């Protein structure tokens, strides 16, 4: 019984982690940019969405606003800070850490240090009754469906459409793709925008059950990092599988050994590093 509930708990976290890690991993796959500000984008997206929900009382508008705000912010960061570093990945990592620190501090100044919960609409509140007499929060259950839908849409786009083929070509060999007449800069901007949008959406969606507070930007980024390390950096399938693995392990860990829960998430990562340093779906870069 509690096993099933914990499994659902894990899957709802997995849905959130997928939203976050999909953008992170694709941005890396295509542009080789490791954006450590991704967690801060989640945070600021969540806060902006929260303010919009507070003023308009419309949860869906909050999600869209959080997403688009982060797209604009990320585009500015990309254009004025990340691009000037060119191909220096080490510099980019450090730069995005600095950006994350600034964003988080500004968010602290505006929204304060308390735990804030994004209010959910009436239709998502309350319990849901699942077969087998399981009572579960409706919101988290719907989140699983939402994450599943996002994963399916992303996967179909990535594997079954022209635009997906172009992105995959860019991931495999950027110069070759650009020599074949693909506007690689436009492609970069597009993928970066999609990744940022998902991070902002994740902030609002996650803020409704994990709450938003200073420091959550690193906690959530770490989970996303473990997802991409386990799944393989740069791989969409890796993000899907990694999210499910990390989400489930986190849920079982919190349930069975709450004091060691952090430790438990990292165990599979350490094992995997020994056996396969590039992750399940990763390739040598």
């Amino acid at each position: 019984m509690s096993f099933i509930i914990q499994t659902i708990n894990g899957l709802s976290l997995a849905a959130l982690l997928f939203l976050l890690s999909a953008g992170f991993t694709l941005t890396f796959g295509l542009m080789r940019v490791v954006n450590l500000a991704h967690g801060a984008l989640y945070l600021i997206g969540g806060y902006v969405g929260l303010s919009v929900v507070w003023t308009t009382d419309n949860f869906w508008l909050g999600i869209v606003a959080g997403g688009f705000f982060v797209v604009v912010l990320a585009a500015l960061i990309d254009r004025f800070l990340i691009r000037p570093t060119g191909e220096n990945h080490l510099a980019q990592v450090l730069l995005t850490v600095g950006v994350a620190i600034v964003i988080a501090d500004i968010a602290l100044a505006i929204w304060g240090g308390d735990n804030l919960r994004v209010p959910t609409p009436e239709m998502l509140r309350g319990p849901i009754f699942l077969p087998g007499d399981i009572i579960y929060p409706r919101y988290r259950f719907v989140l699983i469906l939402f994450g599943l839908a996002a994963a399916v849409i992303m996967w179909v786009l990535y594997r079954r459409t022209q635009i997906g083929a172009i992105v995959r070509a860019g991931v495999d060999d950027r110069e070759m793709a650009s020599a074949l007449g693909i506007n690689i800069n436009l492609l970069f901007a597009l993928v970066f925008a999609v990744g940022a949008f998902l991070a902002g959406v994740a902030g609002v969606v996650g803020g409704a059950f994990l709450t938003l507070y200073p420091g959550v930007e690193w906690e959530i980024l770490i989970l996303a990092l473990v997802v991409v390390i386990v799944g393989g950096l740069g791989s969409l399938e890796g993000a899907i599988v990694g999210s499910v693995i990390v989400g489930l392990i986190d849920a079982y860990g919190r349930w069975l050994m709450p004091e060691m829960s952090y430790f438990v998430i990292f165990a599979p990562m350490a094992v995997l590093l020994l056996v396969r340093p590039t992750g399940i779906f990763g390739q040598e870069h």
Partner: protein
Amino acid sequence: MPERGALTLIFVAALVATVPLFAGDFWVSLTIKILVLGLLALSVDLLLGHAGLLSLCHAAFFAMSAYTVAILQVRYGVPMLIAVPAGLAMGTLLALVFGVSVRTRGVYFILVTIALGFIVWGVTYRWASFTGGDNGITNVPYPAIGDFQITSMTAYFYVVLLVVLGCVLAYRTLVRSPFGLVLRGLKSSESRMRSLGYSPLRHLYVAFVLSGFMASLAGVLYIYFNRFVNPATAHFHISVEAVLMAILGGTGTILGPFLGSVVIMVLRNWVSGFFPYYMTLMGLVFIVTVLFAPNGIIGLVNSWRARRARRAKTTDAVGTEPEAQPRPQP
């Protein structure tokens, strides 16, 4: 015969040693923090400046040794003579385990070390029954051997200075040894070093563990200064700060990380007294350093000296030897 570099270090140490003579307790304690975190930054720079690996988990070793000492002393009443070696051993042991990360390279290494570093933070935070959780461990006793106890700030300052100086001189010997050369060889071309018969994995692993040992040493110095430890000590921010110090001062140098430590610590302890947005300021320092001064303060000084030397050469033809070009950015 000690040459110029070693003499410079001893001279700087002698200068630092005069701080308690003219400055009050605030500045003495600030100098202790600068030295201790500078040592942490130096340990990070062994990997960053020499082996080309950016580690973001050094707060873990730092906190591991600090927590070990604190728990042994406070909870089990173990004397310092045993607690200190135990702290160093635990920090180094952690480095032996986390050393698996050298199987990865580039950004993967960075991500893996971030994740590993968070394990320690998570444990200090969540394993509250053992680590005290958010409250941490308070009332760590003054450092004492038998009945001899160091309670004055100034006395502890000299202990820290001596340990840091000894560590720096040992570090200097290490990076100038064949081992240090292999590390720098690996940084510039791993495949070439491999074809010359060197094992990258083995050398990087040893460097990682040595670096973890140094960070543990900084942690031990820190706990007897602070006499209190909480999860903030293990947080990612400390690892980030150490890296920032190394880069801000100048990677691959010895004075660089300490220079960076001076700037960051003064910002943190003095400026934050009248300017509330200290973290924003630190983030901006980070961004500006990466974008405009990737070789740090020492890099700026070197390139300025090189420019001046070139100008002198063109004007009076009998110029001095041109200064070494600034190191390529990490």
